[in-house]
């Protein structure tokens, strides 16, 4: 098992030390699921249902109030620093807000060489070569390397983010609304790219989105979240029962005029 998430709970509104305030309503409750190597799992749910919070917990950057996350059998939050360092290599992410994921004082080159600086012993020209390959992979021109993130368009920024996540050939990438901001053609390209990589490198994805269509296209299974709970798992057959799933399905705008006629926002 690549990833096991057991009984995760998360409350906000606690001070870490002294003067504890009363607990606020939980953002996540009893979230349990697991993921095989090379699998692609979709997580959908309405805005505010706790998807991004769950993503951050899986990534090991936000401690859950209760429960544990095992990555390749090792607990993320109690691992030794040596293990943590190894896991960092295999566990990558692309965040919802692309611009904020960049240090505004770094150039694109500096952003993309950072994973190599941390884990490999490449010299400068090797790193330049690697960065060029990465940019190629997400269809960006290598002339952009000397630019700052603020000089890129939103879609370009997001592709740099994806390139950074791919740099070290991780085992799992958490994609939080990673392609929602891209144009349709590019979305398709990126999805195809991700799928090729998945096959080639046994890469697993957690694909977080409120876009059910893209998620269905990408994922083997889909988990539906509502108010911080997993309410349903939609498998290969696409069958669903829960009202929350129903609502998400209804929200897909029909593309054909005939369907549009008898499916006007009831």
């Amino acid at each position, binding site marked *: 098992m690549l990833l096991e998430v057991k009984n995760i709970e998360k409350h906000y509104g606690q001070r870490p030390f002294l003067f504890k305030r009363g607990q606020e309503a939980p953002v996540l409750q009893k979230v349990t699921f697991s993921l095989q190597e090379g699998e692609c799992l979709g997580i959908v749910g309405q805005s505010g249902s706790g998807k991004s919070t769950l993503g951050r917990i899986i990534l090991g950057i936000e401690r859950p109030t209760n429960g544990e996350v095992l990555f390749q059998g090792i607990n993320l939050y109690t691992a030794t620093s040596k293990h943590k360092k190894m896991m960092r290599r295999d566990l990558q992410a692309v965040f919802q807000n692309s611009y904020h994921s960049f*240090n505004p004082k770094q150039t694109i080159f500096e952003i993309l060489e950072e994973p190599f600086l941390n884990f490999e012993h490449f010299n400068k020209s090797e790193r330049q070569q690697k960065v060029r390959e990465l940019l190629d992979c997400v269809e960006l021109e290598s002339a952009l390397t000397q630019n700052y993130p603020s000089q890129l368009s939103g879609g370009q920024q997001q592709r740099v983010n994806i390139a950074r996540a791919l740099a070290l050939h991780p085992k799992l990438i958490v994609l939080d609304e990673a392609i929602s901001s891209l144009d349709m053609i590019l979305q398709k390209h990126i999805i195809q790219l991700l799928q090729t990589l998945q096959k080639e490198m046994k890469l697993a994805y957690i694909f977080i989105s409120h876009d059910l269509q893209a998620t269905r296209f990408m994922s083997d299974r889909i988990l539906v979240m509502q108010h911080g709970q997993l309410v349903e798992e939609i498998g290969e057959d696409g069958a669903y029962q829960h009202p929350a799933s129903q609502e998400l399905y209804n929200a897909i705008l029909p593309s054909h005029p005939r369907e549009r006629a008898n499916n006007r926002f009831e």
Partner: protein
Amino acid sequence: MNLVRKDRVHSKGLFSLPLLLIIGLLGLFAPIVMPHDPLAVDIAKKFLAPSWDYPLGTDHLGRCVLSRLLLGIRYSFGSALVIQLVAIVLALLLGAFVALKRGIIDFLFIRICDILLAFPTLVLAFGLLGLLGPSLKNVLLALIFTQLIYYSRMIRSLFIGINKKEFIQAARITGTSGIKLVIRHYIPNLLPPIVTIVALDVGKVILEIAGFSFIGLGVQAPIPEWGMMVNEGKQYIRQHPELMLYPGLAIVLVVLLFNHLANNLKKLD
């Protein structure tokens, strides 16, 4: 086009930097550029008017005023720079440490800082000087201490502000941690505000050093610190007001230059 114009404005705004450099060099090479020994007493030559030999005249003990002003650069301007540099380096280490550790250390740090910051810095420095006794070394220690409290508290807040930023999380996910994280991501984003505030406070510190000397708690005679010179001149304010005026103007000039520099550094970011 826009960028070029902006740069031009800034480079104009930075003219205080070369002036400050010149003043610093004058202080550094004071023994070479001084026309006379600034400590040599010669009562026969007291209160001389400006002349080629004594460009700014002499004081009540017949010492060359210009030489004293030049050597005074070391004590006023130089000490202020030393205080600021030592304070900010220590504050960076301390502030970064508590901000990244958090927990009880951070909690205690905040409480202690808040108690100490409740006193105006001058009062705090006064108390310390009273304890340590008046001397140049103790002025330095007292002011480094008060600046350190203030700066480490500020740097802790700046660090914690950045802690929450997504790019720090992204960098952690990329595998950057510890000192590398601080050097690559915190420092470049914090440097502009820190440099600005340090430059701005040099003026304040110069005034404080001078203030302590003036009331007799700081540098002791015969060291030609500018505040000290103002103090010595005040006995002769009626007959020879220029003895207070020269060091007073020197203080005003340097403080203004630093404030100007700081203001323009702020705009550069």
